[in-house]
């Protein structure tokens, strides 16, 4: 039986290697996704137009403005804007954010140890507004720290914002684990489903089932090539992220691969399940795309924070395997945590896998009867 299994798996590889479209999806997809997410779809904001209304014109205000100018996040807009009416500038789309320094800025800071600044942001795009005000606050905070060195007054409490694990607030960090989940989901689920349904469509599946080759072995030899190819994909993504995006793997590589294998098996069993329930390649593809890609994008937490969702959706997100995988990869890759920190997520993923594998094996058998 071992020899037959080998013959079968070799045949599967021949199918993949001869189909240029499959190859393109298989190996082009992770590269394209990493590059798109890494360079184009970043949620970082660079060179945002800012208007600074300096009513103080003193040493400190100048110092603050220089600091903002020096940051790569902002570009101070001076020409072509109306100084008297800030709102006009927002309406014209000339600026995204405005900083107003009151006339007694220096005085207040020196004598009362507290000064007010006003930040106005264009919140028609709330995400950008949020990001920009955060950037601006941290620059101001920074400035405050510098100023405090020179003051003699002790015990000044300064609120400090620290961006843990990702101090430069690089956008790439949270999308790499997300892309991994997405690519594996797509490759494993869609490819497996399509390759099995294809055999049903062309009639070769019947020949296989009539042969002494056991049905369960048909399944195993169908999924093994995709397991291997998916691990190759994990390698590709990690190499890209380390060498192109400069995002190192902080935790154990072995653990990362072990967890990925678990997730791949989850996806493969979903693929088998879809293939049992459908009869055409198109249907299998649509179901894989709609049923798997969308939940991964929506509920894994890599695009939209789950904490901000309404409770019912938060509950739904728990049954999405990619969510757990995403959390696991993020913990290992970015936070550098070990197994003790992610055993709970692993256990949940493990149970989901067991249940899904059971369901797909059972439906495969029912189909045969």
């Amino acid at each position, binding site marked *: 039986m071992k020899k037959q299994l080998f013959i079968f798996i070799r*045949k599967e590889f021949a199918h993949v290697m001869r189909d240029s479209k499959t190859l393109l999806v298989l190996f082009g997809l992770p590269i394209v996704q990493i590059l798109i997410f890494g360079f184009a779809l970043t949620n970082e904001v660079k060179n945002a137009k800012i208007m600074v209304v300096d009513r103080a014109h003193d040493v400190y205000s100048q110092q603050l403005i220089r600091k903002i100018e020096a940051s790569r996040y902002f570009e101070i807009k001076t020409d072509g804007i109306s100084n008297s009416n800030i709102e006009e500038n927002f309406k014209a789309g000339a600026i995204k954010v405005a900083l107003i320094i009151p006339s007694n800025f220096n005085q207040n800071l020196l004598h009362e140890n507290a000064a007010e600044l006003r930040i106005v942001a264009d919140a028609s795009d709330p995400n950008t507004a949020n990001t920009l005000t955060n950037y601006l606050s941290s620059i101001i905070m920074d400035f405050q720290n510098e100023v405090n060195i020179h003051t003699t007054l002790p015990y000044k409490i300064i609120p400090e914002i620290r961006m843990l694990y990702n101090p430069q607030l690089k956008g790439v960090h949270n999308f790499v684990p997300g892309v991994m989940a997405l690519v594996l989901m797509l490759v494993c689920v869609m490819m497996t489903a399509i390759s099995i349904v294809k055999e049903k469509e*062309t009639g*070769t599946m019947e*020949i296989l089932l009539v*042969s002494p080759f056991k049905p369960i072995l048909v399944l195993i030899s169908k999924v093994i090539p995709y397991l291997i190819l998916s691990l190759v994909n994990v390698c590709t993504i990690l190499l890209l992220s380390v060498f192109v995006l400069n995002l190192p793997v902080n935790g154990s590589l072995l653990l990362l691969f072990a967890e990925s294998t678990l997730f791949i098996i989850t996806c493969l069993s979903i693929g088998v399940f879809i293939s049992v329930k459908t009869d055409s390649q198109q249907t299998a593809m649509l179901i894989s795309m709609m049923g798997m890609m969308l939940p991964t994008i929506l509920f894994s937490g890599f695009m939209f924070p789950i904490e901000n969702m309404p409770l019912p959706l938060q509950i739904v997100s728990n049954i999405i395997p990619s969510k757990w995988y995403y959390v696991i990869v993020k913990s290992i890759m970015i936070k550098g945590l070990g197994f003790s920190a992610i055993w709970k997520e692993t256990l949940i993923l493990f149970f989901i896998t067991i249940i899904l594998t059971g369901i797909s094996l059972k439906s495969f058998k029912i189909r045969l009867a």
Partner: protein
Amino acid sequence: MPDIVIHTNKLTKRFGNFIAADEITFEVEKGEIFGFLGANGAGKTTAMRMLCGLSAPSSGEATVAGFDVYKQTEQIKMNIGYMSQKFSLYEDLTVLENIYFFGGIYGLNKKDLKSKSEVLLNQLGMHHEAKKLVKTLPLGWKQKLAFSVAILHQPKIVFLDEPTGGVDPVTRRQFWDLIYEAAESGITIFVTTHYMDEAEYCNRISIMVDGKIKALDTPANLKKKYGATNMDEVFFELARGAKRAE
């Protein structure tokens, strides 16, 4: 006493209230070309699937190549070949790869495969095409190749489910030459077909109507019995009463 390779007794398959195959009873002898006829939905495919060990009967008995269809499906699978109405080779593999793959999953070793594929390619005159992808071959050639692959492991019985659908008359004739050759070498042929001229080629035929076997005899005897000049008339006479239609 002739060698019986397929034997069924009141073999029945129910799907809920629907009786797809209703107490079918027949025997097929070794080396026979047995035609299995019936309109669409008459239950041919269901009966065939039970005999191939693809689906378990609801009741009745049957043995194929001497093995029980309930308990010995593994042994049955070792002893039968199957070719479905869909063309069933891998289009993106070469002729030789297909031969090696299907031979391989039936457990043939490399040496056997080499000699057998040599013989097969000679027989089909496809030496030049051995390394070509199957999808580049004309349909008739594919069909002949599929049949040769189905009997590569020298099964006792080969089941052909409408093997000549969509093939031109000349190729069909050539295909039947292959079937005769196989039958002469002792392989029993169990074939379903829609073409009544093909029914004439069979040693014996059975005609299924609404899940039951309505007639079973040699083509000549059937024509005599129904006072018909050709099989078309026999079939029409029998199938006219059918309640199930597609």
